């Protein structure tokens, strides 16, 4: 046996998985070859080294916790696709309604602010004596100016 053949089979040799004849051949080669002996010893030492990895402690009450999770999973059933579709449609409707209402409220407050500006600085008595036509013409003039300024 040569070194290449030995090294091809070293793993199964290490795990005693060869026939007795093959095991003998491998052992004979090992006795006569210092390089392969060194190679095998190093490989076995590394394999042995893996045992220094710790084994974790088992979590306590494994079964109790497992059952609790199974029950929780059972209660929290996932939504069907119809339920998911209805839910997303409702969320979309609420959001759209919010946007529309917000936009309307913004316009209303802007108009209210403009009307306040129209009579700002006029004493109440003067406002009361203004005729309806005066209201209309001032109103029209005010908004024409505001529009022209933009």
């Amino acid at each position, binding site marked *: 046996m040569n070194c290449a053949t030995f090294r091809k089979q*070293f*793993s*199964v040799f*290490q*795990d005693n*998985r060869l026939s007795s004849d093959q095991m003998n051949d491998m052992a004979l080669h090992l006795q006569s070859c210092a390089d392969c002996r060194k190679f095998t010893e*190093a*490989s076995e*030492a*590394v*394999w042995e*080294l*893996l045992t*220094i*990895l*710790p*084994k*974790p*402690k*088992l*979590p306590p009450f*494994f*079964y109790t*916790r*497992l059952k609790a*999770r*199974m029950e929780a*999973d059972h209660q929290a059933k996932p939504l069907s696709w119809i339920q998911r579709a209805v839910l997303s449609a409702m969320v979309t409707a609420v959001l759209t309604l919010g946007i529309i209402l917000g936009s309307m409220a913004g316009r209303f407050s802007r108009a209210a602010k403009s009307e306040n500006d129209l009579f700002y600085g006029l004493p109440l008595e003067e406002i009361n004596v203004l005729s309806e036509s005066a209201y209309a013409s001032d109103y029209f003039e005010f908004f024409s100016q505001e529009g022209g300024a933009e």
Partner: protein
Amino acid sequence: MQDAELMERVKAGDESAFKMIVDRHHRAIYHLCYRYLEKREDAEEVAQDVFIRLYRSVDTYQPFAKLTTFLYRIAVNLSLNRIRDRKRKRWISLEMLRQNKGMEFEASSRDHPDFALELKEKQIQICRAIESLPENQKTAVILYRFQELSYEEIAEVMDCSVSAVEARLHRAKLSLKKKLNHLVDDLK
């Protein structure tokens, strides 16, 4: 009572039979998951997932293979999926390991601090070396070295031939030797 018999009882609605199965196998399944995930919380969650899958598949379960093979196969797949999820989330278990958050180390408070530090460093290097193996080789190493399954059992779990297991272990041993040889030299 045999596992197949217990599974029949679970199928008939016997909760105590399911408890017996969990009590019998949860240790091995938890250790297997931990060896992949190196974090106790994750290992427990995945181990629970394994038994939940078993419970849900009880109606379709056919005792072609040993129950342990079935459980190991689910555990390996779920653990590998969890690792892939972590990679997607760029969560690196080694960092947790470095921070000593996930892993319990053998060295106790009675050990000399230098020794404890040295041991911890070695454990990290071994974990890193195992982590770096391709999935197939890593699974073969974990099942053989840590779960002590035979080549034939590993072949069943991994759904491959025994010669494929031999090849995977052979390559893994060479790779680990290359990566960890310096630790062995240090011991001499």
